[in-house]
């Protein structure tokens, strides 16, 4: 399970890096989202999901079962998702206004300030 997740993490990170190197604004956005997801997945891998039991303390128990998932990384992922979503949304708005005002799609066009 861990090896599959790690592999998925690596594939997403490399795909994101590839898209970032394309230097097109829209692909930047997708690439950053992919990298964000790869990192979130790596946080999930940190919780060592061996059994997959939910991390909930039952009615008659007073402690978490040993085989349950570690709840901390899930809390961390939740926070990280919200933050990266906010940052990517802000970037999307910035790209949108850039496209509308100056009609450029490529980072090179911005450099020349033309088109």
């Amino acid at each position: 399970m861990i090896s599959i997740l790690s592999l998925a993490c690596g594939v997403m990170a490399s795909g994101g890096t590839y898209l970032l190197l394309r230097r097109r604004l829209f692909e930047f956005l997708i690439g950053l989202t992919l990298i964000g997801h790869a990192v979130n997945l790596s946080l999930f891998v940190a919780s060592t999901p061996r059994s997959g039991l939910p991390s909930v303390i039952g009615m008659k128990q007073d402690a978490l079962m040993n085989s349950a998932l570690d709840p901390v990384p899930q809390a961390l992922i939740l926070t990280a998702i919200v933050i990266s979503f906010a940052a990517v949304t802000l970037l999307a708005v910035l790209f949108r206004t850039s496209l509308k005002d100056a009609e450029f799609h490529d980072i090179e066009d911005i450099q020349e300030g033309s088109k």
Partner: protein
Amino acid sequence: MIATLPIFFALFLAILSFILRSKKSGTKIIVLGSFFQFLLANIIIYLVAYQKEVLHVSFGAWPPPFGISFYIDTFSGLMIWISSLLFLIVQIYSLASPESSNRFWAHNFCWNTLAAGVYGAFSTNDLFNLFVWFEVLLLSSYVLFTWSFTDGSLQEENKIKGRKGLISYLVLNIIGSSIFLFGLALLYSSTGTLNFADLQSLKAEDVSLVIHLAGFCLAFAFAMKAGFFPLFNWLPASYPFGPISSVALFAGLLTKVGVYALIRFFLPTSPLSSEWILSVMLVIANFTMLLGVYGAATHQSLRRILSFHIVSQVGYMALGFAIGTTTALSASIFYLLHHMVVKTNLFLIAGTVSHLRDTDELKHLGSITKSNPWLALAFVISALSLAGLPPFSGFWAKFFILYSAANAEVYWGLGIGIFVGLFTLFSMLKIWNEAFLKPPLQVLTYQVKIPRPYSFAILVFTLWTIGLGIYPSMLTKISDFAAIQVLDTQSYLQTLQGDIK
């Protein structure tokens, strides 16, 4: 309890600026609030530096390995104090700058959330919490940046450059945050904790390769935010085009938050740190100093030159950190306190110059000594201080850093430090000749009157530089004590584990 007050007060001010958005006196109340924030920071610095207390709190009464804890010692206290001073004074400056013409309440809102992020980053003891505060301050800074696109203070060509700069600032910082988070994932998977006190108490034989890798990821992310050598390109790309009051504040604060995090979490005793991180950092520090000042020497616009100087000055702090002795750390802390004020002041002066002449290209400027002699004097004082000449604070800051480099027998750092100081002076002379001294190419009609908030802000910062230059021991004692306290892992652990009982 008092450890959380700066953050809550800043968030309260942010909400207050939303509530008072349609009131005429709203802005004045917010500035008054920032003044109270500064008074609060004074109480904190009195408690930590003179009463030798350590302010700490664990949220929800969860003991340290489980809950998030805040920990304010003298180093954090000093940083909170100096940043609250910067927030107050630069906010007064922004009352007259172009940003105030367009939705100023929203500007004040982001200003105060930025403050909350900065105070949080300075006081937290938990690495994930540090990540969250970094994001709070970065998101606020992205939004503050966009003011220059809407308030009409930029020309059309600079608007496009500014947008490109902002895009690179955003993209690189998002990548940096991802790397930071990846480091945290590695750290958590191998140690099961992100609390720094808990990490400090790891035994040396438990420190595995994964922890070193995590340490590398974190150092990379901090170095990127601090603007160290291979990763500083976002800084001169974006800073020359942002709104002047925000950029002056970022120049003083944001890169230094990265330096603070490096000093705090990569001490020689920290499990994240290792021999090779410090020796790599030494090389990086030298390159940062050199390339920053080289960039400054080749550019021809006031704010661009100053942006490159941020990079080269951060190199000095990195040098002090990389040497790692108590005197070197104390020198780095002193350097932070000197540099934050002087750099902000230089940016404020550059903003005033572009307010007077509508441009900051050196070739279009000239003869400010004639029209505004006091502004010229303030520039001379700050510029000489930045270059490290004797009667001002920069001399002592550079002297302490280079003295500790000589003591630790890091002669490369010593030589490059002196050389870079010389080049800093050279590029400051370039600004002086071009912008202040030479007669302008064509006779322009320009403004002479400097708005009162501008003069006030510049006056306060200039007096700080002179005062610290004449009487440096008012801070050296505190910074020595702060460095000893930062390196004293035992009492740090005792304080935090005292909470458990």
